[in-house]
């Protein structure tokens, strides 16, 4: 990554030289690191991501494994740290696999959204004219359509798979981002350095990628980082409606929904997923805060 390269290249040199070697991304990164809450959240979320990737190694049981002798075991009971559910499945293991589902869907959806938004926003903003009118008319139609409803329709059509959720949530959230990208591009392409690049003989694609995109990326990264927790929530929301991934694949939304039905008899079934869900959303949102502050020019320190 450029950010870390910039830092490590400069390490050991004087303050002046360090500043000289750092690009805009490196500077954003150093501001981000000073944001304690965000940096702490980043560590927390990195652990979550590692856990999700290494789920089969970390989870004490498989997500389908049932312990018939110990149905609805309470937290702290033998062999089951967070207890078991109705079928005797280990809740901790299901949370860990549910994390896998949540993160796959969220990152997949936001990556899809980002790629779509960048492509459409850059094309529309840079080319202008008829291409822009067409693309933005399409975007507006999508914008007018209630995105949650759209996701529901998509899942119904594509079936209850992770792929369907990625497509459904991604398509529901690219629209706002595409509009943002286009607005950014339109402001930046009027800048004199874009004209200067043209005067030096730069091709249209060079201008779009080397001159416009890097200068537009800050606000885009900020919305994307806020869109990740939104996508996690959307996945849980769809699961709550019974439109999440096909059981028995675990999903936090489904676990919360199931737990709420046995709230009095077995509160641990609700509490564990709900707390983890809330913490995860909070941590991702704080990362978003940090990213926003890192790219906020008023926080710029020379």
């Amino acid at each position, binding site marked *: 990554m450029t950010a870390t390269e910039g830092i490590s290249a400069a390490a050991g040199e004087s303050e002046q030289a360090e500043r000289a070697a750092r*690009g805009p991304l490196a500077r954003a990164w150093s501001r981000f690191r000073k944001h304690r809450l965000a940096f702490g959240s980043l560590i927390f979320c990195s652990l979550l991501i590692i856990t999700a990737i290494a789920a089969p190694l970390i989870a004490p049981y498989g997500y389908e494994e049932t312990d018939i002798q110990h149905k609805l075991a309470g937290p702290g009971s033998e062999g089951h740290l967070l207890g078991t559910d109705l079928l005797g499945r280990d809740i901790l293991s299901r949370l860990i696999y549910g994390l896998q589902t949540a993160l796959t869907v969220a990152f997949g959806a936001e990556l899809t959204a980002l790629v779509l938004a960048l492509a459409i926003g850059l094309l529309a903003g840079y080319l202008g004219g008829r291409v822009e009118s067409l693309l933005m008319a399409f975007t507006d139609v999508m914008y007018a359509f209630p995105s949650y409803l759209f996701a529901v329709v998509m899942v119904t059509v594509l079936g209850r798979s992770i792929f369907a959720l990625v497509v459904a949530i991604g398509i529901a959230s690219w629209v706002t981002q595409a509009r943002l990208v286009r607005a950014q591009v339109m402001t930046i392409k009027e800048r004199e*350095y874009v004209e*200067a690049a*043209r005067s*030096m*003989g*730069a091709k249209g694609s060079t201008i779009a990628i080397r001159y416009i995109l890097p*200068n537009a990326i800050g606000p885009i990264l900020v919305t994307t980082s806020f869109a990740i927790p939104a996508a996690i929530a959307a996945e849980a929301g769809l699961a709550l409606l019974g439109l999440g991934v096909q059981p028995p694949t675990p999903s936090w939304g489904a676990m919360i929904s199931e737990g709420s039905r046995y709230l009095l008899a077995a509160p641990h079934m609700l509490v564990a997923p709900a707390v983890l869900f809330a913490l995860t959303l909070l941590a991702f949102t704080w990362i978003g805060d940090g990213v926003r502050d890192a790219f906020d020019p008023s926080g710029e320190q*020379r």
Partner: protein
Amino acid sequence: MNDEALLSVRDLRTTFGSSLTAVDGVSFDVRRGQALAIVGESGSGKSVTMRSVMGILPRTARITGGQAYFGGRDLLAIGDKELRKIRGREIAMVFQSAMEAMNPTLTLERQLTEHLIWHGLCNKAEARKRAVRALGDVGIPDPEKRIRTYPFQLSGGMRQRAMIAMAMVTEPDLLIADEPTTAVDVTVQRQILDLLKGLKDRGTGVIMITHDLGVARYFCDDAVVMYAGRVVERAPMASLLDDPRHPYTVGLLGSSVEVGGRELALRPIPGSPPDLSRRPVGCAFHPRCPRAELPRCQTEQEILTIGPDRDAACWKVTVDA
């Protein structure tokens, strides 16, 4: 004169939208080693003229007539792909503010070498060498180290010089400088002008777009005065300053703070430049002109030859003679 011209613009006409004619029949020549000042107030069409020649007009603008010969080719006719090979390589441009005209996300190295590579002039290592040399040439200390910095890490004066280095690194034949000293301190102004003068002395043709005759006189050989999209006077710099003929030039000199070392009483031109979508009938300057005579000034006035290398677009000039 015509046969040795580096750039020869003839009857250039550029319109915005359907009716706004920003540049209306402009002609001029620049030779190698010559510096030409294009002088006028904001909105007189001087920047649009040069952007038309470079082919970097905004999308709403159209070139509706004229030719611009450069090295035997008509820049207005060869199409964007061919023009792109000339831009930045044979003709380069320097902008008003380096703060605005340099990409804040790229290091000087990238910005000084990229176009060398786009144009296939040299490889990366060679480009870096040329960039370092160019930075040294414009008087940036320690160029080997500075080349790794980003524009915002330089002082205003250094940034402006770095931008000139950016334009010069390809060794263009013609340099267009658009108000290169407007956004910098007076102390930096002189350095910038000295740099441009040095380039001119080494044979580069320089076109300097400015509203400031004081800046233009410093090293320009000739001047073209524009008003409302047309050339109103064309003369060698010295004679223009000593003996301005067109009433607009007279007014422009009168409103400069100091020209040629003489303090002049400030006499601003009354009124403001016309709205180009509602250009006055006949001579566009007549509503502001102290010598206007109606109805004669409401008829179109061709540009008149009034002496060796001198033209002016005012009928009064011939009456005076």
